[in-house]
């Protein structure tokens, strides 16, 4: 059966078809049309091997190429878009900046969740506040809490600290903080002292103001700073107080300048009696140079002559006395002295003059400085005596900025529990056991009460970048509480504040109770008797630089590269010395082959303190036999931008007299201006108030040229066809040289807005600064053309002497950016038409088209064009914020980051103009005058820079353009700039 069974695969097999047999041997019985299909006979083609290799080569190459990683640009869309964020549209948040030094209520511009720019809100800002947005993105900030210098977890740190704090029984717990402006922190500290025993709060200012605070305490029973109303004063006499620069608050310049408007015919008379040439001294109508030791002598002389009615002994004061007597109740005397007795005299003078409650008020004081050096010194002693159980620091860096920092550091080792809340592992934090890093202001909630009746709020504008926690939150944690946000809102709601509105506005007003001020105690005449020693020694006057201040933000490369408005040097501190003293001491400044400035070195010696290798800079206007030295430098544990830059002058804080020891070697300065006088040219046109009232166009002289048609001005002589600028917009910028104080805030604002790179010290030395706007500073010279022709001085000698500034020069500041010439010399020389003119009066730079011949920069009479000599972004040789993933977050997405080899320059914030035009178009309305702003104009605290459309007859800039004071820089060239200046008016009467 089994064998009979037969399976067959198909009928063909069953029928024994012969094909089956064939198929068994050869699958394809018929030849496949393979050759037709492949067109060639594969076996017979003689190129097959080559083709094969070609295909192999191609596929290998293709595969290799495909496997190479292309740069991945991550652009992640929102999965769920937050309601308030529209990509490409900025949000503004009102908040407050207070870093223990500078206070400002600000608006923060956020793009796609990142704060990128700080604008003024209620108060005016300064360069450091403007730059603080970059400090937010400082990658040197602490990223986690530290325990014994090792990264730790918040949970662990908190429980350790709470545990150890509660164990402290008999010793003190000290909170060492900067001046606290926040009422909510004060209330938290009260809570803290309820929970833990022996809690004490000590405030410390890096630059102490004990003198004025203690004097007011004695005079008025209130340890506070008076509020000053400079606009109400007809006569301002400042004894060294640089109130336009760094003295106390940054708010005074607005007020000061509003009292100096020649248009109204009212202009205060400002006397500055000082040692170092300060910003206030530069702006003063009359500057008297004194040694610091003379200050008290002159003040007591002034007091005696005002109180007795006699003439002052020192005839330098006679004019001031006369003016003050004529302006009782409308004058201000301020003084930078940190000596209580000196400040008592100042108080007495102001009291005699009836200035209190007129031009200044102690009843409505400012709380901006409250530090107490005596308490700090006492603390160090107690620390040394093992009386302190725990030290918590907040916004202070005593191991760096105490004059006795070494004592502090030594005593610190005797404190069993040390906690820092610094943003950085700085000089102090690195000595401490725990570091609980605070948030940056822009990541924090908070409040501030800087002066009478004024309150402002701080709100986060970005989630914390790092694993940090704001100080208030940390305190709450230690109080077994949490959520500072609700604590804060409850705190203010309880006090009747409309929280939502206050957060929105950034500030609110509560009527403060007027402080109870005891009437001034009669000046103890003992104060007036004193002895002056060491007259022959060199005296020291410390100051803060506009960029660096007390060094809190030293690691901010924008601020390091901000040229000092007076010396124009950056990336350095140095002693300033007068030319006469320098010659006596055989100290020199000289220019090397590429023009850069070099200077001698000295050791600065004060008793047992020696600061080695201090560079010397010759500074016109410096008192003879004195030196100035700026604080805030010489940081060692701040970050790569600040470490090792300059020298720490804080040890000299209490030194009055010093000795200089000449040493070998030379110092290389980075200075952005190497020539200091106007060389008889009239870049800055000047007049006096009296002449101005007489003739508003005085000082504003335009040259004429003889032609066959008669004498014509340069702009009437052109043979070019004039572009039609009457239709549409015509963007103009007016710069008032009377209002410009030279504070350099606009320079930083411009740098932030326009993604301007930082180039470092060496490149500044190579005269390759990149700032789109600079503030030229000129000193007056003893030599003038009139004098030369009168005294028969040869032209060569005249120019030689003109290069030398006067010993106590008059100073002018002139902001210069691209002048947007309407007959632009740069435009017609570019071979590739990369720089062209817009029909709105702007000179436009097309980076993409630029090949970098630099002909435009050569032909620019204002030398405002900047060339990218190197690749400044993503280049390890320029290791600043543009070479840092965090630092790059500050870049403005509306402005392109330029590559190497192209020219760049001021665009008059074209991105802002474009935005406002589009907004107006969308809303179907004309562009409003008040919304048209460049950042230099909007950041200007004194409204010296005004931007607008001069085709709009209602605009402010139109009125300014037709003002008698308006003039074009280098008008004889007839380049017809869109930027114009207003004559400087000084009150010389």
């Amino acid at each position: 059966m089994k064998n009979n069974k037969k399976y067959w695969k198909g009928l063909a097999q069953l029928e024994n078809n012969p094909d089956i047999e064939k198929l068994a041997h050869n699958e394809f019985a018929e030849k496949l049309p393979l050759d037709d299909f492949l067109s060639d006979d594969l076996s017979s083609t003689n190129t097959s091997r080559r083709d094969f290799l070609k295909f192999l080569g191609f596929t290998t190459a293709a595969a290799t190429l495909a496997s190479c990683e292309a740069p991945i640009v991550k652009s992640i869309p929102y999965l769920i878009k937050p309601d308030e964020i529209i990509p490409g549209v900025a949000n503004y948040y009102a908040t407050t900046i207070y870093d223990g030094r500078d206070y400002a209520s600000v608006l923060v511009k956020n793009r796609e969740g990142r704060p990128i720019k700080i604008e003024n809100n209620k108060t005016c800002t300064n360069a450091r506040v403007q730059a603080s947005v970059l400090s937010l993105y400082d990658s040197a900030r602490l990223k986690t809490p530290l325990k014994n210098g090792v990264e730790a977890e918040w949970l662990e740190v908190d429980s350790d600290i709470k545990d150890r704090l509660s164990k402290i029984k008999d010793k003190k717990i000290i909170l060492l903080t900067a001046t606290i402006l926040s009422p909510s922190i004060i209330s938290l500290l009260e809570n803290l002292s309820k929970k833990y025993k022996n809690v004490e709060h000590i405030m410390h200012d890096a630059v102490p103001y004990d003198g004025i605070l203690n004097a007011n305490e004695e005079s008025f029973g209130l340890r506070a700073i008076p509020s000053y109303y400079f606009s109400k004063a007809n006569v301002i006499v400042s004894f060294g107080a640089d109130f336009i620069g760094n003295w106390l608050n940054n708010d005074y310049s607005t007020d000061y300048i509003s009292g100096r408007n020649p248009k109204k015919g009212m202009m205060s008379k400002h006397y500055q009696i000082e040692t170092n040439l300060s910003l206030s001294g530069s702006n003063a109508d009359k500057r008297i140079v004194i040694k610091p030791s003379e200050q008290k002598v002159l003040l007591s002389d002034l007091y005696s002559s005002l109180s007795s009615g006699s003439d002052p002994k020192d005839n330098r004061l006679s004019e001031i006395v006369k003016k003050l007597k004529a302006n009782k109740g409308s004058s201000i005397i301020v003084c930078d002295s940190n000596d209580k007795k000196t400040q008592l005299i100042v108080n007495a003078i102001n009291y005699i003059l009836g200035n209190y409650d007129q031009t200044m008020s102690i009843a409505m004081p400012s709380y901006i400085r409250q530090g107490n050096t005596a308490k700090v010194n006492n603390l160090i002693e107690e620390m040394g005596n093992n009386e302190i159980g725990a030290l918590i620091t907040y916004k202070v860096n005593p191991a760096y900025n105490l004059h006795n920092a070494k004592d502090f550091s030594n005593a610190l080792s005797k404190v069993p529990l040390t906690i820092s809340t610094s943003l950085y592992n700085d000089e102090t934090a690195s000595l401490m056991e725990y570091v609980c890093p605070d948030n940056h202001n822009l990541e924090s909630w908070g409040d501030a009460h800087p002066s009478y009746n004024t309150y402002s709020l701080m709100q986060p504008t970005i989630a914390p970048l790092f694993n940090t926690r704001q100080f208030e939150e940390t305190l709450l944690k230690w109080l077994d509480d949490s959520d500072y946000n609700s604590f804060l809102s409850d705190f203010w709601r309880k006090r009747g504040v409309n929280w939502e509105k206050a957060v929105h506005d950034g500030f609110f007003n509560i009527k403060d109770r007027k402080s109870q001020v005891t009437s001034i105690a009669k000046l103890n005449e003992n104060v007036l008797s004193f002895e002056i020693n060491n007259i022959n020694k060199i005296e020291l006057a410390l100051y803060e630089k506009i960029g660096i201040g007390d060094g809190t933000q030293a690691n901010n490369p924008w601020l390091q590269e901000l040229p000092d408005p007076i010396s124009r040097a950056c990336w350095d501190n140095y002693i300033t010395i007068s030319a006469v003293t320098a010659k006596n001491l055989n100290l020199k400044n000289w220019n090397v082959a590429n023009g850069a400035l070099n200077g001698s070195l000295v050791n600065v010696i004060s008793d047992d303190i020696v600061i080695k290798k201090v560079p010397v800079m010759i500074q016109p206007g410096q008192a003879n036999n004195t030196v100035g030295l700026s604080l805030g430098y010489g940081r060692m544990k701040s970050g790569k931008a600040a470490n090792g830059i300059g020298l720490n002058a804080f040890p000299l804080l209490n030194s009055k007299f010093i000795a200089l020891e000449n040493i070998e070697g030379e110092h290389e300065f980075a200075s952005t201006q190497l020539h200091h006088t106007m060389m008889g040219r009239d870049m800055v046109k000047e007049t006096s108030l009296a002449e101005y009232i007489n003739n508003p166009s005085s000082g504003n002289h335009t040259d004429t040229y003889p032609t066959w048609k008669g004498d014509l001005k340069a702009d009437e002589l052109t043979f070019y066809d004039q572009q039609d600028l009457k239709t549409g917009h015509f963007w103009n910028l007016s710069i008032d040289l009377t209002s410009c104080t030279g504070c350099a805030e606009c320079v930083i604002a411009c740098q932030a807005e326009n993604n301007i790179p930082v180039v470092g010290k060496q490149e500044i030395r190579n005269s390759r600064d990149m700032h789109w706007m600079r503030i030229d500073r000129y000193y007056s010279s003893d030599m003038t053309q009139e004098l030369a022709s009168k005294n028969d001085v040869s032209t060569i000698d005249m120019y030689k002497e003109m290069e030398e500034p006067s010993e106590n020069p008059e100073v002018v500041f002139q902001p210069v950016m691209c002048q947007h010439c309407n007959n632009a010399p740069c435009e017609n020389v570019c071979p590739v038409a990369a720089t062209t003119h817009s029909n709105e009066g702007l000179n436009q730079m097309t980076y993409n088209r630029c090949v970098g011949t630099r002909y435009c920069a050569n032909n620019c009479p204002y030398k405002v064009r900047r060339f990218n000599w190197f690749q400044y972004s993503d280049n390890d040789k320029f290791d600043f914020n543009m070479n840092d993933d965090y630092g790059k977050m500050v870049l403005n997405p509306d402005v392109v980051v330029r590559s190497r080899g192209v020219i760049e320059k001021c665009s008059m914030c074209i991105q802002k103009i474009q935005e406002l035009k589009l907004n107006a178009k969308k809303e179907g309305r004309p562009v409003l005058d008040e919304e048209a702003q460049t950042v230099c104009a909007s950041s200007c605290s004194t409204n010296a820079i005004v931007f607008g459309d001069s085709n709009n007859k209602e605009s402010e800039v139109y009125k300014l353009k037709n003002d008698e004071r308006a003039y074009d820089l280098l008008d004889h060239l007839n380049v017809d700039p869109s930027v114009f200046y207003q004559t400087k008016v000084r009150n010389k009467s």
Partner: protein
Amino acid sequence: MQKESKIRDPLILGNKTYHDITRDIARPVEGKANKYWWILFSLAAVLMLWGFACMAYTIGTGIGAWGLNRTVNWAWDITNFVWWIGIGHAGTLISAVLLLFRQKWRMAINRSAEAMTIFGVAQAALFPLIHMGRPWLAYWVFPIPNQFGSLWVNFNSPLLWDVFAISTYFSVSCVFWYIGLIPDFAMLRDRIDKKLSPMKKNLYGLMAFGWSGKAKHWQRFEEVCLVLAGLATPLVFSVHSIVSMDFATSIIPGWHTTIFPPYFVLGALFSGFAMVETLLIIMRKVVNMEAYITIKHIEYMNVIILFTGSLVGVAYITELFMAWYSGVEFEQYAFLNRATGPYWWAYASMMTCNVVIPQLYWIYKIRTSFVATFILSIFVNIGMWFERFVIIVTSLHRDFLPSSWTMFSPTFIDIGIFVGTIGFFFVLFLLYARAFPVIAQAEIKSILKSSGSEYKK
């Protein structure tokens, strides 16, 4: 057949026959290079390679490698550019203008002078290229159709005029030079043994364009030369005029001067003749051309140098006068600063080398001395380099606003690139001296019987 007065000095010394001339001129090409050639060539090649390395570094890192700054945006780069371009001008003047004026003495020197022109212009052309911030986009300065939108070059810009001037100059010079070389290449071709060196024979044969010395060939050759001379003559004046407009059309005091075009042309001829002398005095020794490049040639050139040098001096003084006469403060300061400012030494070098020293040529003994001429020609070369440096740097470094005033100091890259172009120039010239007939033998034979010393007896 031309006749020439017997009392005129002969232009060909020694009792040369036509065959002697052929042999003398072919010798450097056919023989082996001597030791001096190799020493010079290696030195030049090393300098050239160093220069190339400096250029590569500049292109790799940025113009910041140079000593320029925000105030002085041009310095050695454009100084070198103008200097090299100026040097070229003597070659064109000798071959074109002197041809039109039928100056027979040009025949011994025109070949090398033209070679100098071409090599000089090649060096000059390097600088506008490498001084760009983004040299890889250099082609944007040409008006070529493109797809970048409606982008076109800016015809107002003198830099664009430069592009046209230099490219025209370079191409016309090359063509002119080459046409003159054809009969000489044919001569070399005919002297080469095909069996010994077939490659060489083919190469020279190719370059000779099938020249066979027919009367028709000669007639056309002379016509073409005349036409090209006519074309090249305006270039002698136009190219440097246009280069000068880079400065003259600007608004910078010290640049903005109407005198610049003639002043630059004269300066160019002045420096060009000096460079021709420098080269030929060496060359006549190294390749034994004493019989053809005689002291008479040198004297003729010295007279031109004396003439142009004096005119350049007049131009300098005119500039000073105009600055004073204009009454413009900025203009006056610019020139005062040139002479007495921090770059006074550059101005003093320029004045000494260009105005004072050439006056020595009034003295017959100096004018007719190879050694003195050689030394003086070096002075002129240096002086003319300083002239351009003075114009460019001293005008820029202190212009309108004193706040921007600064100084310029070269980096080693700046120096390396300049030295490198000198090396490159000599590499090209030395190669030329070994491969090309350095004297136009076909032409010089035409004056043998009128100006040869034997025929003057």
